[in-house]
């Protein structure tokens, strides 16, 4: 008979190993899924994971890795701090939208003035927008004990409606011949989040993501606040005795994650997306949850997980156009990854013991 036995300490080996095992298991079951859909499983996997990196058109796809990876990493870094402390902000998608709206709104308000100050101002506004949106669940939790999971999620739907209203109304391009959507920020040099090195995919969002990773790393390993985050997640009662103020921690974690999600939204809307439109958000806020867990809530891990997820987006697009693989299949694939990760995580905290039936 097989028995689970709790490890005295979480296994470090398995902490590193489970994400890899989860990826392998997802390859396997993803392959089965693709086969069921009538596609060659090996070819599908190769198209998704090999083609963008080393294929014929890799020069085109590699920069995409940064463009798609940056918002995922940026958001996931923020989420990971809260998740570590048991504070569940799952409304990053909403904060991302509001950040983009506020940031783009500030930029558009200055149109067509030219100044180097406009873009930095937009960045601040974007971060502020995301922060405010995340503060709603934060303040409600601290003040009234409201569940932050439900409130932050409800606010995603509110933000989506708000986005629709803005792109059809206030922010609509007055010269857009009545089409929904704002002016294209890519054509407004002062507000454009342009690539720092042309053709590299390296825009300011990538820089921000890297800074966030370093910041989170230092915070978690060197700063008192990082200690508060870790100890609250592992032993909330002990955290109280250690003098951690739980309310301040809630506000800090939600605020930081909202700010980073807002930044991600701003960099996206001012750069790769270019304009505020009804469906400019593509679910990065939700995928970032997978990224955070896949990266073990560790800054470096999140970078790797973010790049892997970006790869599934890019490769998924290629597989869609070349093999006719439905876009939803990639979504299922991403969901599967999280499942396997959570399931295999068992081995980090427990070990299996084989045991003969006991003799009474």
């Amino acid at each position: 008979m097989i028995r689970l036995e709790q490890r005295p300490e979480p296994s470090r080996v398995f902490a590193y190993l489970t994400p890899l095992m989860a990826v392998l298991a997802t390859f396997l079951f993803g392959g089965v899924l693709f086969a069921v859909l009538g596609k060659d499983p090996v070819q599908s996997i190769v198209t998704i994971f090999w083609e963008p990196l080393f294929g014929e058109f890799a020069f085109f796809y590699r920069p995409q890795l940064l463009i798609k990876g940056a918002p995922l990493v940026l958001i996931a870094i923020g989420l990971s701090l809260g998740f570590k402390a048991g504070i569940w902000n799952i409304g990053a998608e909403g904060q991302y939208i509001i950040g983009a709206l506020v940031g783009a709104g500030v930029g558009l308000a200055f149109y067509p003035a030219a100044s180097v100050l406009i873009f930095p101002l937009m960045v601040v506004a974007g971060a502020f927008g995301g922060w405010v949106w995340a503060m709603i669940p934060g303040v409600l939790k601290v003040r009234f004990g409201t569940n932050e999971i439900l409130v932050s999620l409800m606010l995603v739907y509110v933000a989506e409606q708000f986005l629709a209203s803005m792109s059809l109304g206030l922010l609509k391009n007055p010269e857009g011949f009545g089409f929904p959507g704002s002016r294209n920020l890519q054509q407004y040099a002062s507000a454009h989040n342009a690539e720092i090195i042309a053709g590299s995919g390296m825009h300011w969002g990538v820089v921000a993501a890297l800074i966030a990773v370093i910041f989170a790393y230092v915070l978690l390993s060197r700063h008192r606040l990082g200690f508060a985050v870790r100890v609250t997640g592992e032993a909330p009662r002990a955290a109280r005795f250690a003098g951690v103020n739980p309310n301040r921690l809630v506000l800090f974690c939600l605020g930081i994650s909202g700010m980073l999600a807002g930044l991600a939204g701003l960099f996206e809307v001012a750069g790769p997306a270019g304009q505020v439109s009804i469906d400019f958000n593509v679910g990065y806020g939700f995928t970032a949850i997978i990224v955070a867990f896949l990266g073990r809530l560790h800054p470096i891990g999140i970078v790797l997980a973010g790049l892997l997820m970006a790869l599934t987006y890019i490769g998924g697009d290629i597989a869609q156009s070349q093999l006719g693989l439905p876009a939803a299949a990639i979504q299922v694939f991403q969901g599967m990854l999280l499942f396997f990760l959570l399931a295999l995580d068992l081995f980090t905290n427990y070990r299996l013991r084989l045991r003969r039936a006991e003799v009474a």
Partner: protein
Amino acid sequence: MDLSVINPVLLLAALMSAATPILLAATGELVVERAGVLNLGVEGMMIVGAICGFAAAVESASPLVGFAAAAAGGAVLSLLFALLTQLTLANQVASGLALTLFGLGLSALLGQGYVGVKPPRMPDVDFGPLAEIPLLGPVLFSHDPILYIGILLVAAVWAVLKFTRAGLILRAVGENHDAAHALGYKVVRIRTLAIMFGGALAGLGGAYISLIRVPQWTEGMTAGVGWIALALVVFASWKPWRVLLGAYLFGGIAQLQLNLQGAGVAIPVEYLAMSPYIITIVVLVVLSADRTAAPGSLGRIFHASG
């Protein structure tokens, strides 16, 4: 603006139908949470139920087969959650989120061939002369059978939880799983059954949207109803009859904002459409002061050591 186009009798009748998906999903989740498990995957199970039910109803030309398939689909998906949280002892919040993300993708995949298809219609229950009563007739006695099943289920859940031994055991497991285990109850088995029941009801709720409310299949059509159902369980203080009350409140708001959109009120459509979510938040704030009603072991991982 012309508010006179809103017929109060029709509004009340539509309210009952608008409330049913939330009611079904929330009743299921209530049982799950009373067993001490927090399943945040309601939205995922609903949307999978919506497409399973839709596909089965279209293929078999029978809405009843559709609803059976929806319940089965929701229950099967919830088994994944049970596997993760009961067998591999994963974090319930993360597993629930995973279930929702996975369910949204899976439903989009399954539903590809069904966009724009019309499902078979579910006939209303024939109450004979009762339906002729003015006012009460059209409001109470002019609906499909699933709506009445939903209300009966609330009553059944209430009665089982309150008066039966099975209900007592379920609550014991939810209040204190270690004590229940020490008394010899199979905590994992009981919880798995509760999770499956919740999944089946969430599936039914999803299919009610795709087969009766809308009736059509579009991606992501549950649009947060599963999350509202989760919120409903909290502010119903885990009590079945309050879930019914809350579901009607939300059905009313959802329906009223639709009618106001139709009546051409001066408020933009988007702001009306966000009202159910905002009201959910407001109600959560007002009612979250009382946390004592929550089951004692809610969300905690159970592992029988030794």
